[in-house]
């Protein structure tokens, strides 16, 4: 979940409301699916739960929602002037980083704090929404130092300029190799032969997207009130939406926005005015809205509710309502998305909860009832129940315990300790023994639980196993045999054992468990070598069966 840190003063100044205190603020934040994570004096940390709303990951976005819920829609990016300039895109960028969107913002000169906030939004959007600058990266420049048309070119790695924060001219490959930012983002461009570069009409270099701006034009200082902003990336929608969000933020801060015309070579899209305003629309009938919400809401009230959510427009035509999302949102793909906005705008507290009316019969899963019956028998036999994780390690299952079959391995384990899914419960019980020498003996323990096994064809299936173990100075084969016997007796099943060799157990004290004529598991006295490997200092015997074998 994204978390943002904002200045409380800034938030309420932008929202044009008085600070109502934390309790009421928490209530208002339901509008943006947000929660107060931390609050002290001017410092406010907000957690935002909607991962589909990058527009909210900044103070401007949250403030916008609060303001509109009071004052109605703002009509962001409506009636934009003629484009302030053009960007020409090099066709050789098609397979490198083809998309760019840009705009100019004039009339808002950020102070140091506001500039920091601007940079924070830029970083946050590029990191999360822009997938660490892959799908979208952002650059700000002083407009007055740029002459249009700006060229978005594909250049050789030998091209050089002075990157931001450095003192000397460096080639692009030097930048990737020798600067911290370069190394961080090198993987985004280095596989291509030609790399992206923004330069203006006079040939002065703006930046090497998505890596770094130039020291000369790419530096914005407090008080700069004429800005040029560009977004480049590999994903068309992400680039456009990112640009639209930034433009709305600056508009909220008081800047006038002018679009920029992007001219693509004929092989791509031809030309487009950016940021692109998507105007996503959703349509729902009265019935559809009422069916989801369970209230007799009128279309007029629904319209009011959506306008308080800053919808760009809401039209009613007969029995249907069509809402158009503001330019900073693209998260509406179905009528239900709009209907949820109606509910949020009205407030969940105004919906009276209803209990389900229809009668249903509850059932336990049959296997769980079987497991419960067996657990009861085992408790009666004086056994203590164990619960272990389903993830284990190759070392514990194979190397230490010498389990003959292989567990399914995880391709991307976090640690080796949890690198496989268990295919047997016995190592978990042995683990208990190796940890519990200080607990008074004898130990009679068991676990029933899910394990994962794979057929020869690689198809995996989950089974429920039952394993028991007895450990103590006098613990032996007979103890676990008796426990197993009492389980089978209680369920009227025939139990017989057939001697078998198994590395886990002492030769001649190990058998296949046969229940009603079917091989169902294994029983034996653990081999001293296994016990020693586990660091267990007393004799131990155990059994393991598939719970299905107790079904008949």
């Amino acid at each position, binding site marked *: 979940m994204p978390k943002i840190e904002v200045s409380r003063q800034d938030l309420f100044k932008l929202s044009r409301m008085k600070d109502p205190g934390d309790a009421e603020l928490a209530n208002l934040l*339901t*509008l943006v*699916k947000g929660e107060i994570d931390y609050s002290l004096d001017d410092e406010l940390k907000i957690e935002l*739960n*909607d*991962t*589909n709303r990058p527009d909210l990951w900044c103070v401007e976005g949250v403030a916008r929602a609060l303001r509109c819920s009071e004052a109605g829609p703002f009509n962001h990016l409506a009636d934009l002037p003629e484009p302030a300039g053009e960007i020409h895109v090099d066709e050789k960028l098609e397979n490198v980083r083809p998309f760019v969107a840009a705009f100019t913002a004039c009339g808002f000169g950020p102070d140091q704090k506001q500039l920091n906030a601007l940079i924070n939004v830029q970083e946050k959007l590029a990191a999360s929404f822009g997938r660490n600058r892959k799908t979208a990266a952002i650059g700000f420049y002083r407009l007055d130092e740029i002459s249009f048309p700006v060229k978005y070119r594909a250049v050789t790695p030998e091209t050089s300029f002075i990157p931001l924060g450095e003192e000397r001219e460096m080639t692009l490959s030097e930048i990737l190799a020798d600067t911290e930012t370069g190394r961080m983002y090198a993987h985004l461009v280095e596989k291509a032969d030609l790399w992206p570069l923004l330069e203006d009409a006079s040939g002065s270099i703006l930046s090497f997207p998505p890596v770094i701006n130039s020291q000369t034009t790419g530096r914005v200082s407090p008080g700069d009130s004429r800005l040029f902003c560009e977004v480049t990336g590999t994903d068309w*929608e992400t680039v456009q939406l990112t640009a639209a969000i930034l433009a709305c933020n600056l508009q909220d801060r008081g800047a006038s926005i002018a679009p920029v015309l992007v001219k693509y070579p004929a092989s791509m899209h031809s030309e487009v005015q950016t940021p692109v305003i998507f105007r*996503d629309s959703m349509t729902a009938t009265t019935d559809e809205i009422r*069916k*989801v*919400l*369970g209230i007799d809401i009128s279309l007029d009230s629904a319209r009011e509710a959506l306008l308080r959510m800053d919808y760009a427009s809401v039209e009613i035509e007969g029995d249907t309502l069509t809402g158009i999302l503001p330019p900073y949102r693209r998260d509406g793909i*179905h*009528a*239900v998305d709009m209907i*949820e906005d109606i*509910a*949020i705008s009205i407030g*969940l*507290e105004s919906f*009276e*909860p*209803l*209990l389900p*009316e*229809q*009668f*249903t*019969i*509850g059932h*336990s*899963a049959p296997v*769980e009832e079987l497991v*419960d019956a067996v657990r009861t028998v085992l*408790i009666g036999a*004086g056994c*203590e*129940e*164990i*619960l*272990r994780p389903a*993830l284990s390690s190759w070392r514990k299952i194979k190397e230490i315990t010498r389990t003959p079959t292989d567990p*399914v391995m995880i*391709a*991307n*384990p*976090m640690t080796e300790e*949890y690198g496989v*899914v268990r295919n047997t419960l016995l190592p978990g019980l042995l*683990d*208990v023994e190796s*940890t519990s020498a200080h*607990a008074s003996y004898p130990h009679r323990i068991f676990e029933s639980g*899910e394990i*994962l096994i794979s057929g020869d064809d*690689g*198809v*995996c299936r*989950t089974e429920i196993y039952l394993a028991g173990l007895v450990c103590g100075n006098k613990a032996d084969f007979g103890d676990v045999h008796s426990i197993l016997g009492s389980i089978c007796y209680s369920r009227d099943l025939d139990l017989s054992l057939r001697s078998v060799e198994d590395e886990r157990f002492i030769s001649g004290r190990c058998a296949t468990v046969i229940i009603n004529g079917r091989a169902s598991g294994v029983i034996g006295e653990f081999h001293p070598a296994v016990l020693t490997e586990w660091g267990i200092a007393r004799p131990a015997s155990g059994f393991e069966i598939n719970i299905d074998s107790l079904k008949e």
Partner: protein
Amino acid sequence: MTEERDLHPLEKKLLTYLENNGKSSDADIIRESDLPDEGSFRRAAQWLLSRELIIEESREEKVFVELGPLGTQNLEVGSSPELAMLRAVAGGSNSLQEIQQDTSFDRGRWGSAFGALIKGGLLKKADGKILFDGKPEETVFQKVWDLVYLPLSDGAEIRFTDLPENIAEIVESRSPRRGKSRAEFILNGIVTSILDITAEGREALKKSLETVTIGVMTPEILAEGSWKDARFRRYQVDIPPSRIHTGRLHPYRQFLDTVRKRFIGLGFSEMRGSLAENEFWNNDALFMPQFHPARDIHDVYYLEEGRSVPPPSDELEKRVAAAHENGGDTGSRGWGYRFSRRQSLQAILRSQGTSLSARTLGSNPDIPGKYFAIARCFRYDQVDATHLPDFFQVEGIVLGEKINLRYLLGLLKLLAEEIAGASDYKFLPAYFPFTEPSVEMHIKHPRLGWIEVGGAGLFRPEVCLPLGIDVPVIAWGLGLDRMAMLALGLNDIRDLITPDLSRLRNMKIQPDRLLTGREGGANA
């Protein structure tokens, strides 16, 4: 006496010894009587003293002087550092540096001896030189040597109270109660008590010898009928029981059992499924786009190459793929990307129990219907006090013609009251990729304040329609590990799966209070 219990065999032995030998010291009794060991003697004596069947005639503490580690070192060197220093100064050395050249003692010991001698007025400092005006063999340190060290080296016992006052003072000041490793002397107190039998004791002994008393019952006593002429030794019934370890269910499993029973009681049917899933059922069927961050390799465990889970039918997969790509016939625009069948079939460990709900929806569920599953789930987290390698969630669905947001809130209210045991709760708008609208539930915990325990939403049409469900469906889920920790009074989530049997044995279980949201266990 009738209310008194009979003599315990140990008591009988002690009384018999005293009757035969007269008043005796405890050391003698332990050495000579039939009592098996010192512990038995102490217990018997305590019982008898409390009933005044014996009395303690006298009690004397003798304090013996013994050498501590530093004293032993002195004995090996043949002198205490104080005495050695006095001799050195008397012999002409007059700086501490010079004396410290002698490595019989380390610098620290020379230093503290110097401090003690200055403090005691034996040594004086003038013009940076050390002066001693006297003879070492006439000082108190020589006396300590003669009266303490020499006799101890001969194996003699020295009683502290026998020492002259000025010597005793030095010995006591060098016998710290703590830090015995830096002690010169150790004062060892040994208590001797003299016990004697009382008249009541004699009476009781006599009585118990006259009567045949039965201790432990045996089949022979029953068979022979010998109990008729005997009396039963009265037991002291109020002594604390010894602890036995019974068979018992695991505390967390009991918690899960209770949750299960409550859901069945509310009319829910239990679903079961596989630990391994393919991405189709874990994500795709839930309309989570294949580029969703939660589907990243860093958030989900992939099974090794070559492992698989049976694929969905081609027809179903086509419908789900269409919903993703352009909405298909769900009324949605879809996510607008190219659906990958290959990714869809990737085998993973299920990251959410919702995969079970998706499978249930895809296999002709009852309408109206209510389903739940207590499912082990796997998330890519480092194991620590708040994260387990795998964890339990209870999730499920409610389907029906009339289902809407108000019934969803009603269901959450039911879960808050019946499962979480909360009386104070609130609902907040939430975001889950597969539901719209989505609501999360917070309950008020008496100690922790508001905590989030779960959520619910109406499955998106893009989830239901491709699976063949055309009625509204509530999807809901609650995290169980956290609730269990609260109920069991645990602070570290790893305790829920501890391999430590004694820790497990010490967890209290009160299944009837498990879900109250209050601290059910007593281990907090």
